[in-house]
């Protein structure tokens, strides 16, 4: 097979210019009402333009790897790499009065004020630079720019280009075979928001935004210790997304950490835009129904989990941190569990458990008891249900399918709408649709009650990613109930427990502390013991140090009496 001839870079550049010229011509012709005839030409030019741009971009070995000091060539190289991107700005200016310079930066990612005042103005005022030889040029320019902040010099084109793409500004000086890379990064970012995904009545409300640096700053504010480490990784061949693996040194299990970082490094993907893109690469089982990581946007929660010996992965451009390893119980803990008293928290956790059981079993039991094991139902209740089902044309299983479909549609629609409209939709769905569907004789009253409790029960799960497995398994449960009644429900339950017992999340048994049994873990599972008694980190995480708090005896009862009053008066 003959070797393909490599395209000549200058020829390609000329072709691009020609294409642009043709496009302008086309635009002029379009203004004279020749649109129909120009359609083909337009599309052909588009194809030509994109093809040539891609061809130029792929001819890396044709690109110079070292900076030559020629500004025209620098501009040309950049143009060739980024194409006609309007956000990449090339700004020529004069250093002193005689030496030309070139700034390259991405508009929107940089602080324009810093460029104007700290780079352009300083260099334009530096008359001594324009008089020096090229050898002294670098040192003098660096001296002028060093006041800006973080400045590096490089003569490598790939290095310059990648840094410009992340918000730095490249400064080229005519005759200088190097470029200055000035840290002018200023991303457009939300202010630090309060969490809306994991709300809490009490306790901290701060959430992450989309900027990785802010993620780290926020965590650093929570854990003011040099033990808090961030391992920086870059994933995405094209997107070059920064990923930070956060952990507490001296707490986290080193082997666990190395496994996680290894898996992060192994990610081979062109574009990574969100945390889930990374997280799904890290799971032990790609098709597991139950999640093996938790995404949280609460800074306090991530800090707490790091303190437990877990690892958090922060992905640039995503406000959710990936927490791992996770067990089933971890998904039923929330930040506010630790902001309330022991009894409040324990009660809330029991209600969550009851909600899960209601959400998972209510409708299957309804089907089992009305379709298969009718004899197990107390007669008065059965007659009530039978009475409410008079005139309903569908069997119970179809009723369940209809109602659950309605719930899912309402849920999805409410998610898609703005918050205010979502509330309205929920009300409309609950009141209007519920009443109307009963009056229409499609489902019965008992089914409405059952469906409502099911939906509410599954909503009590704090972590959204944990509701999805139950929503899937709900249908397996329905199938079991429809085919085998109560026995089917039991069979599916046993299957679920067996499946959960066989799962692991980064070497952590998914059902801990219940299986394998770890009594110390029970203190913070279904119940939540008083915080002074939570003295050990989870055993399943194998942290370097299990003890996280020293035992402090309960204070002796203290009573304010006359003696105390005298004491305070004296003082």
């Amino acid at each position, binding site marked *: 097979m003959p070797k393909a001839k490599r395209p000549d870079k200058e020829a390609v550049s000329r072709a691009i210019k020609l294409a642009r010229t043709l496009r302008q011509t086309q635009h002029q012709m379009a203004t004279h009402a020749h649109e129909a005839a120009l359609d083909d030409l337009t599309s052909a030019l588009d194809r030509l333009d994109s093809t040539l741009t891609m061809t130029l971009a792929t001819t890396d070995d044709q690109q110079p790897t070292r900076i030559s000091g020629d500004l025209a060539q620098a501009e040309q190289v950049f143009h060739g790499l980024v194409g006609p991107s309007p956000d990449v700005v090339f700004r020529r200016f004069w250093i002193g009065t005689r030496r030309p310079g070139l700034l390259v930066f991405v508009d929107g990612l940089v602080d324009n004020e810093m460029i104007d005042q700290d780079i352009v103005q300083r260099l334009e005022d530096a008359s001594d630079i324009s008089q020096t030889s090229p050898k002294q040029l670098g040192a003098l320019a660096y001296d002028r720019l060093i006041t800006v902040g973080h400045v590096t010099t490089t003569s490598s084109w790939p290095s310059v280009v990648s840094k410009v793409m992340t918000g730095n500004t490249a400064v080229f000086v005519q005759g200088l075979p190097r470029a200055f890379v000035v840290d002018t990064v200023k991303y457009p970012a939300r202010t630090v928001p309060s969490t809306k995904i994991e709300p809490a009545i009490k306790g901290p409300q701060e959430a992450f935004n989309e900027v990785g640096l802010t993620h780290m700053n926020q965590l650093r504010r929570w854990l003011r210790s040099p033990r808090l480490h961030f391992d920086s990784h870059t994933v995405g061949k094209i997107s070059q997304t920064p990923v930070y693996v956060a952990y507490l040194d001296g707490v986290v299990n080193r082997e666990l950490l190395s496994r996680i970082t290894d898996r992060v490094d192994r990610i081979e993907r062109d574009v990574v835009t969100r945390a889930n893109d990374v997280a799904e690469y890290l799971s032990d089982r790609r098709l597991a129904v139950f999640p093996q990581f938790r995404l949280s946007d609460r800074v306090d929660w991530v800090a707490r989990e790091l303190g437990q010996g877990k690892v958090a992965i922060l992905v640039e451009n995503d406000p959710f941190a990936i927490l791992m390893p996770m067990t089933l119980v971890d998904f039923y803990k929330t930040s506010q569990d630790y902001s309330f008293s022991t009894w409040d928290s324990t009660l809330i956790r029991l209600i969550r458990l009851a909600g899960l059981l209601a959400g998972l079993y209510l409708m299957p039991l309804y089907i089992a008891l009305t379709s298969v094991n009718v004899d197990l139902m107390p007669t008065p209740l059965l007659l009530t249900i039978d009475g409410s089902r008079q005139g309903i044309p569908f069997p*119970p299983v179809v009723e369940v399918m209809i109602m659950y479909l309605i719930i899912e549609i309402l849920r999805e629609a409410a998610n898609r709408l703005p918050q205010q409209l979502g509330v309205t939709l929920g009300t409309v769905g609950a009141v209007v649709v519920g009443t109307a569907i009963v009056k229409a004789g499609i489902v019965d009253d008992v089914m409405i009650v059952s469906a409502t409790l099911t939906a509410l029960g599954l909503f009590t799960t704090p972590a959204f990613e944990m509701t999805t497995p139950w929503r899937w398994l709900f249908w397996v449960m329905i199938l079991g109930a429809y085919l085998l009644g109560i026995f089917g429900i039991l069979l599916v339950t046993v299957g679920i427990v067996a499946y959960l017992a066989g799962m692991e999340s980064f070497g952590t048994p998914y059902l801990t502390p219940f299986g394998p049994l770890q009594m110390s873990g029970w203190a913070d599972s279904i119940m939540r013991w008083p915080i002074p008694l939570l003295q050990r980190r989870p055993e399943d995480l194998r942290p370097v140090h299990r003890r996280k708090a020293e035992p402090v005896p309960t204070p002796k009862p203290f009573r304010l009496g006359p003696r105390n009053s005298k004491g305070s008066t004296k003082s």
Partner: protein
Amino acid sequence: MGMQAIVMFLMLGILTGCASNRPLNERALVLVMAFAPGPHKQISVAFQIPTPQGLTSLTSGSTGSGSPGHKTSYTVFGRGSTLSQAFGQAQSQVNQGLYLGQLQAVIFSTRLSGAQFQAISSALTRIGQLDKTAFALATTAPLRQFMRKTPDSTPLPGLYYTTEFGCSQCQTVQLRRRVWSIEKYLNAPAQNLWLPLITLEPQGFHVDQMVIYRHNHAAKILSSQQTADIGYVLGLTSKGAVNLHWDGQTVSVRSLKANPKIRWQWIDGLLHIHVYLRVTGSVEEFPADLELGPHVRGLQQQTSAQLSSDCLTAVTKLSRNDLDPFTIGNAYEWQHPGTLSQWRDAYAHATWAITVTVRLQQLGDAT
């Protein structure tokens, strides 16, 4: 592995019997089933099924509601020389499957012959779908008249039995008897089955009597008082009452509950049966001008004497009629198999003694 999974799913589908599952709306919920003799030694069976109006009347806020003029239940009758024929005829009259899994009561006419009763009882034990926890009762009323009756207290006739027998301490005599308990009396000539008798009243039903069967035939219907007296010996009476004359005035002793023990022995070839009753109760309607405390002992003695006398009369009468609802004969047959005829003779001439110890508690409490 794949083949194993396929086989497992196939087995689940084939062997579970789910194909025969019928949803609730495809089943005719039979709440009461009644049996009576038909012409030409046939068996008549009746199934009482709630109507849609009757069902909707149970739910408030439902789309439909049972109006007062509507029937809350309907009855399907069947007749045949065998029970299966009668069932088949009844089934042909409804377009839903007759479902016996929620049966509330099985009513036996007292006019059923022994053979018919035995055939019916035996058949009932073999209907797998039948709810054997249903209450078993006997009635003297004609079948159609009985099934047409709707008590005022419940919207559905079938729910009467749940309310009547649901509370174990609410009746004077706990005459609750389940269908499954009939089975042990079949082919056991040494013991006599008893069933509560349900009678028709203008307001509905009434249950305070007992029917005692001999050879699967209703042999004797006890009066209310006899039922209460026998109830003491059987340990079924929990709200007995005795009216006494004390110092020229009437005194009521109520809430009498007995804890019986029966001993029997042979003395000189004669059967002696001794019943010990430990009875508790409370005093009501005591004269206001008297202090109760000093009189309690006397009241206890008088109550004991009256209960002893009443119970002795009742048990002696049963004994003379060769009726043994106390299952004493069952114990004898266990110890002396093959000597049942001797036992019957001895039992008919047995000497009864009843010792009653009354302790009146909760003085003055009205329950």
